[in-house]
């Protein structure tokens, strides 16, 4: 799967993945993006778990910052760590939205949202849809390109809503190929945004903003 290519012509992409291959595919996607700055939002794997997985798979995390919306539901967790910001739960959509906005201001190359499926556990599909609509509008005001993951077998209503807001919806098959374009909206195709800021500077800035 060439996710960088997809994101070069579409600012926001929704990837529908089969549950049985989800973990492998999400790792492959991140691996492709890890040479640029990435803000990774997780609603189903703790930051510690992601670190463990990425290290095992040889994914360089120095260009990444994380928004972890799951750890606080499982254990006592601080508000932030070196390269991670914790949100109280995947259902705390206002808090999640504020956290993502802080990061978007720093023009990360990519935002990975893993995944919209888990949002539906905590909130009604319509509320999640409103959140996604607002988030995608926010993304479009910035240079950041975003990929949203969803399980293709579930959250049909939310996926349907999300499909209306993103530039492209793609199904990824078990071998990692984007085998079917479900919907692609007409509109202006943008080129790669120029982003030369160092991630470490962004992290420092984010910490400053977070403390305010």
């Amino acid at each position, binding site marked *: 799967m060439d996710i960088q290519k997809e994101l070069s012509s579409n600012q926001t992409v929704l990837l529908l993945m089969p549950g049985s291959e989800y973990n492998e595919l999400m790792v492959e996607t991140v691996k492709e993006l890890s040479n640029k700055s990435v803000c990774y939002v997780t609603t189903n794997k*703790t930051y510690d778990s992601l670190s463990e997985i990425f290290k095992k798979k040889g994914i360089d995390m120095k260009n990444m910052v994380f928004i972890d919306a799951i750890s606080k539901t499982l254990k006592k967790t601080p508000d932030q760590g070196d390269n991670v910001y914790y949100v109280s739960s995947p259902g705390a959509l206002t808090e999640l939205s504020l956290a993502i906005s802080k990061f978007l201001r720093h023009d990360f190359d990519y935002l990975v949202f893993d995944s919209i499926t888990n949002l539906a556990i905590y909130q009604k599909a319509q509320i999640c849809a409103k959140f996604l609509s607002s988030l995608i509008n926010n993304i479009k005001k910035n240079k950041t390109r975003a990929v949203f993951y969803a399980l293709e077998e579930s959250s049909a209503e939310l996926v349907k809503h999300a499909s209306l807001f993103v530039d492209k919806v793609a199904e990824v098959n078990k071998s990692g190929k984007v085998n079917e374009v479900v919907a692609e909206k007409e509109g202006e195709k943008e080129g790669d945004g120029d982003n030369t800021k160092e991630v470490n500077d962004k992290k420092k800035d984010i910490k400053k903003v977070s403390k305010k």
Partner: protein
Amino acid sequence: MAKKIMVVDDEKDIRDTVEMVLEKEGYEVVTATNADDALKKVESGEKPDLVLMDIMMPGTPVKDIIPKLKGIKVAYLSVVRTSEAEKEDLMASKNIVAFIQKPFDVNTLLKKVKSIVK
């Protein structure tokens, strides 16, 4: 006398499937839709031999309900991926007896349940 299992999951499909599979194996099954519901049922007199509890559900966080289920064995069903260290921490409560990662194989689940409630 049949052992009683309480299945706690906000997803109806999972509750129904696990209930069906366990009943077929001769277990008595009660279900609850979230951790609050499970606690309410226990407080009203349900005495399950094992609670199969989804770790991530709407309502009061599971971690806050577990201490109130003193003396009842609980096995987590988790779609959430945690690190090994986090898993150990989650298993630290005395009544937590297993951590079953979703999606799980029915035979693995049955084997696990059998070994816990024998």
